[in-house]
């Protein structure tokens, strides 16, 4: 039975820099130049050093809930799963218009398990992973980083706490989004929370929960489904990710 335990352990570990789907598969081709055997015998022009491949700036968008998991009932006729999908679709279009590559975990009203969402995100080796939620409670936008304690990066991260090695980067991303939302005069609540699949993500990850806008001195009351309100949130997120593009490495 030992081999079964070893195999189970392997499936629960996430390589720090390799995609999850690489576990148990053949290793990807190496980028190191391979010198011919006779190169040491005769002097020759050394090959030009290979340029280190620039990591691509990819953003993962996870529209929470879907299928039979409707999420919060924001109104009798409005479910969280629909709002998150609308927001994600808008955000994806605007990011792509800004030349940012986007990977989404859900593009329709389908129930996707948290494990599959995390696998998709980790496979993308993303520069930012945004988990999109909506609620009827509170005001403005709630930003949550994982409540895991920061941990040093190791080659194989435990699946349950993969995010621990990325907490510092996640908090940097959170402050970038915080600044952009503040600039758009949207009230922000910052916090730490334990929400699936955040703790399994091997990328800078933030849960973004959009709440209705409560009217105040500088804000007008807006429903979470209000198109103008959603646009101002999307624009602020795009501005934050644009800034993150130059800061994330």
């Amino acid at each position, binding site marked *: 039975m030992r081999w079964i335990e070893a195999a189970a352990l392997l499936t629960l570990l996430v390589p720090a820099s390799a995609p999850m789907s690489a576990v148990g598969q053949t290793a990807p081709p190496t980028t190191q130049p391979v010198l011919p055997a006779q190169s040491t015998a005769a002097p020759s022009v050394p090959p030009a050093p290979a340029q280190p491949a620039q990591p691509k700036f990819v953003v993962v968008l996870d529209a929470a*809930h879907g299928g039979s*998991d409707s*999420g*919060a*009932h924001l109104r009798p006729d409005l479910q*969280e799963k629909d709002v998150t999908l609308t927001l994600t679709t808008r955000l994806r279009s605007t990011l792509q218009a800004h030349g940012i590559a986007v990977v989404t975990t859900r593009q329709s009203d389908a129930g996707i398990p948290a494990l599959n969402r995390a696998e998709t995100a980790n496979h993308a080796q993303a520069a930012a992973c945004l988990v999109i*939620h*909506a*609620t*009827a*409670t*509170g*005001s403005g936008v*709630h930003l*949550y*980083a994982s*409540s895991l304690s*920061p941990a040093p990066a190791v080659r194989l991260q435990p699946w349950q706490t993969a995010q621990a090695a990325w*907490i*510092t*980067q996640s*908090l*940097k991303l*959170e*402050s970038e989004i*915080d600044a952009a939302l503040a600039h758009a005069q949207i009230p922000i*609540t*910052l*916090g*730490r*929370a*334990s*929400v*699936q699949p955040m*703790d399994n993500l091997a990328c800078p990850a933030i*849960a973004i*929960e959009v*709440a209705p806008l*409560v009217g105040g001195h500088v804000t007008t009351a807006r429903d979470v489904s209000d198109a103008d309100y959603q646009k101002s949130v999307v624009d602020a997120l795009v501005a934050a990710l644009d800034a993150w593009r130059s800061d994330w490495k």
Partner: protein
Amino acid sequence: MISRAHKILFMVMLLACVIMATFLIRLRNRAQDRLQAQGVEAPASIAVAPGIPPRTVTLYVPNDLDGSLTAVERSLALPADDNAQARVLLESLIEAFHATGSTHPMSIASGVNEVYFLPVPKSQSQSGDPGQLAVVDLSGALAAAQPSGIEPETLTLLSIMATLHANLPNITEVHFLVDGQPHETLAGHADLTRTYLASEANPEPSPPESPAQ
């Protein structure tokens, strides 16, 4: 063909069942009357010995608008037993959620089945008492009444942890059940599969840590 003896035996057993059922129902009614006469509402309620002076306790009440926890002092007569104390504290907290004008509204005023305590295993690098793990068994009715969302659910958990830790400082870890069973989330968001450190419920919202490169 059923014999006459079998028929008589069946009738006698049926009669005995009816008599026993009547007797049990009467016994239950008598016990209920006795409890009501003593002023105890239901067997599930917490008995506080008469004459115990009220103690000032701190409840951490959430505010959904800014995501903060506010310390509110209350005077409560607490039972001697730690488990019962924890239940009284949490029931008072949920009453505060339910109160008119609450900053974290909830439609029910009660929702803790039981609080159990377990010693936290001591790790090799640890010196001193590692404290206790509180296992909070929430009712299914509370989980159903909990507004759904990361913020409202997280605030409910944090306020429970902060209230327990403030009044029973020996509690260092908290785990949640719903109706005695492990539950994935409180109402679709906050993870209940993990054990929380009581220190995570910092009443002051903490600013983001400065990035260390």
